[in-house]
């Protein structure tokens, strides 16, 4: 079915053809650029509308307590989405993030907590001041191991990280014996519970990390390479980009971000529950997809992802305020994912498989 493009057809036909072909494409391209430029902001009006609806539904919506609650809850989800967005942009996915958010703090605390006295006994191997660093290192190690499975052993990334999800959850429950850890060192909890200027510290940290991530993707060559790797790995390789190495680093960074989300989460609630992070991966994907991150890689921005997170949290908040029973939030979460998928499928015009 190769068309005779290579041999020379009569020159006039080809010239005419080229002219016919080019014009609409250029125009089409122009439209696409405009669409692309605004696609990042497409959720901003949605967030605004949600705000208006919230204001109508309940007077409690527009109070600082409520809004601060929303943004604080957005930070933990937001960091997971940041991690997943980076991984998705480079054409991979990591399901195990939702377990990393729980198991990384557990391992870090296990390493620093005293061996006797508390409800949860650790091994007190290292001083408690190192707990955050340990937590991040555990996250990075999990990411590196995922990378080893996906890039070196070349196993299917979806199944490999699904296996890791279950395995790490098991490790978490095994270490803690299924109980919560309530003896959280002050240094570990600080970022999650402290407020600076009336706003949770976690919000500053989260926004800061998004900003750093956004700048990296836009202005660093290795960041920009993620789009090339996710968009067309073969082309990236042909252009001299070290595809595997960069993907591996991204997976490690993703694990670290998830572990850091664990730090914030733990500080926020003052303990590590046995189910910390459970089922969060669905929200992570929902927020990423609503935010315009393509599941096929190479497309999307962190700003879009952040608006996705806010939209999702606002919807849940407005529902709660409107008196929708908590038992129904799962149903709504699912419905939002489906609606977002369908919308993004038709907005982008590309099939998702």
């Amino acid at each position, binding site marked *: 079915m190769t068309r005779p493009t*290579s041999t*020379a057809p009569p020159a006039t036909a080809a010239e005419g053809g080229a002219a016919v072909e080019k014009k609409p494409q250029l125009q089409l391209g122009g439209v696409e650029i405009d669409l692309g430029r605004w696609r990042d902001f497409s959720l901003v009006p949605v967030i605004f509308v949600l705000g208006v609806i919230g204001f109508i539904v309940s007077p409690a919506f527009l109070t600082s307590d409520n809004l601060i609650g929303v943004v604080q809850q957005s930070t933990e989800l937001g960091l997971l989405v940041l991690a997943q967005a980076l991984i998705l942009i480079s054409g991979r996915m990591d399901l195990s993030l939702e377990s990393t958010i729980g198991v990384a703090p557990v391992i870090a605390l296990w390493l620093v907590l005293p061996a006797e006295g508390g409800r949860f006994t650790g091994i007190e191997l290292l001083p408690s001041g190192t707990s955050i660093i340990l937590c991040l290192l555990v996250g990075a190690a999990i990411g590196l191991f995922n990378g080893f499975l996906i890039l070196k052993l070349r196993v299917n990334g979806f199944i490999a990280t699904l296996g890791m999800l279950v395995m790490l959850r098991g490790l978490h429950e095994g270490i803690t014996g299924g109980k919560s850890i309530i003896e959280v060192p002050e240094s570990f909890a600080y970022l999650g519970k402290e407020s600076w200027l009336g706003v949770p510290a976690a919000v500053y940290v989260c926004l800061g990390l998004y900003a750093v991530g956004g700048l990296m993707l836009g202005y660093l060559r290795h960041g920009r390479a993620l789009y090339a790797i996710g968009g067309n790995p073969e082309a990236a390789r042909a252009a001299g980009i070290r595809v595997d190495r960069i993907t591996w680093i991204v997976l490690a960074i993703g694990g670290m971000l998830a572990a850091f989300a664990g730090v914030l989460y733990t500080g926020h609630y003052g303990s590590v529950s046995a189910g910390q992070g459970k089922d969060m991966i669905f929200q992570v994907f929902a927020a990423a997809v609503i935010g315009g991150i393509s599941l096929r890689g190479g497309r999307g921005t962190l700003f879009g992802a952040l608006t996705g997170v806010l939209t999702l949290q606002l919807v849940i908040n407005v529902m709660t305020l409107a008196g929708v029973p908590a038992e129904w939030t799962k149903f709504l979460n699912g419905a939002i994912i489906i609606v977002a998928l369908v919308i993004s499928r038709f907005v982008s015009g590309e099939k998702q498989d």
Partner: protein
Amino acid sequence: MPAAPPAVRADGVVKRFGPTLALDGVHLEVAAGEAHALVGRNGAGKSTLVSVLTGMERPDTGTVAFSGESAPSFGDTAAWRARVACVYQKLMIVPDLTVAENLFLNRFTGTGAINWRRLRARARELLAAYGVEVDPSARAKDLGVEQRQFVEIARALSFGARLIILDEPTARLDAGGIDRLFDKLRELQRQGVAFLFISHHLQEVYELCDTVTVFRDARHILTAPVSGLPKEDLVAAMTGEGAPPGAAGAAGAAALPRQATAAGGAEPVLRARALAVAGAYEPLDLAVRAGEVVGLAGAAASGNTAIGETLVGMRTPDGGRVEVRGTAVRTGSVPHALEAGIGYVPEDRHEQGLVPGRSVAENATLTVADQLGPYGTVLPSRTRRFAQRMIESLDIKTSGPSQDVDGLSGGNQQKVVIARALARDPGVLVAIKPTAGVDVKSKDALLGVVRRVAEGGSGAVIVSDELDDLRVCDRVLALFHGRVVAEFAGGWSDRELVAAMEGIEPEERAPQQEQGGRQTQPADSDTSDQPHQPEQPDEPDQRDQPEKGQQA
């Protein structure tokens, strides 16, 4: 047999794809029980005709008739299958199912559960009827290429088809396999099955077929009995030799080689020593001097693409080395090749060239991301400026550096890929099929760019099977089955080069080329005493096999 109506008869078939005319009123007639060859260069319209004959594409005008009856209506797959089948290069069977299941796929008889024993028995019967020795309970993926082809042919015949189209069936077979395939085909021919045989290997056409039809530029050129047609005339019909070389519209004055600069004994910018990839090509010595454009000509499986990919680091060679200006380059690593100054224009811009959905600027600067700002940063202003310069120097038709590459025409997309390769000012440019799928004007422009690169003091390698691409080269090496079979120093005729690429042995060509063929022999003997070539002992066998197959 003359009394029987022709197995297929196509008349006045016209097929257009957008602006391109793929078939221009062609006709073809294959008599019952005949082995008919259809030959032509890439893009001559062979594949389109196959699509029309198998009911995959509806012709714009023209008629197709099988055994005297007009063709089934478009979309009636079952009816088409009962008349004609095509065995493609890519095998169309389900690899994880057994042979029996593949044979009866979607036509298990009876209702309810499948009776596996009966199915296998029927499969065995069917295979036996056509003399195919394959175990029906074997998984299709465990079969060799040859056996899979037999299974596909048997399946086609079991649908009732009396015309089988074979698209390059020998491309992946060894000599023994080719012999057995031909034996089988001749046997089936005696049972009244007609074959339309599409091949790039003219030797095989002469061996197997009764009649040959030549297409060129979407038109029917000739149909003649094979026995009465000298090889030179066949090649001439394929290339349209006789018309001045420039008449095809490509390779304008700007793109013509300049002998003078290249002839000087300049230091080679690129040198390959005993470079080899087992199964793809044999140890190769190659030197490209500054200012020189070297062509690696060869058909699909000749190994020329693999050589190009090895030079740029996409493939890891089994042995040998690559040097740029006398310094060894780490093989098998694109970053190292880039660093050493090897620019790469990949074979397929969609596969390896472009990142879809990203801007022209971003695509064009992928290879120079380290030069666009300090400390690993990429500054948008510098990226834009860089891209703008590329857009101007290569005359890329785009609304601006920030346009999405998907919106560009094929020729302009290809220019973006070339811009990417040139971005680092490479000492040598390796371009694989640089003009595939672009219109005539862009073709000229693209080849002009390659030429200019060489004139700027770099070297260039063009890997292609397109004569227009090769015409800008100062020197062309023709490859066949992984081996350099001839070298042309410019001034070659289309006929000579095509004959070499089609694997017609040197003694059948003019003596001048025979010499060219011999010049490359030292390349082989040179390497045979190198210790780091474990695959060396096998290679003489591999080299002999295809030739044996063709002389048989």
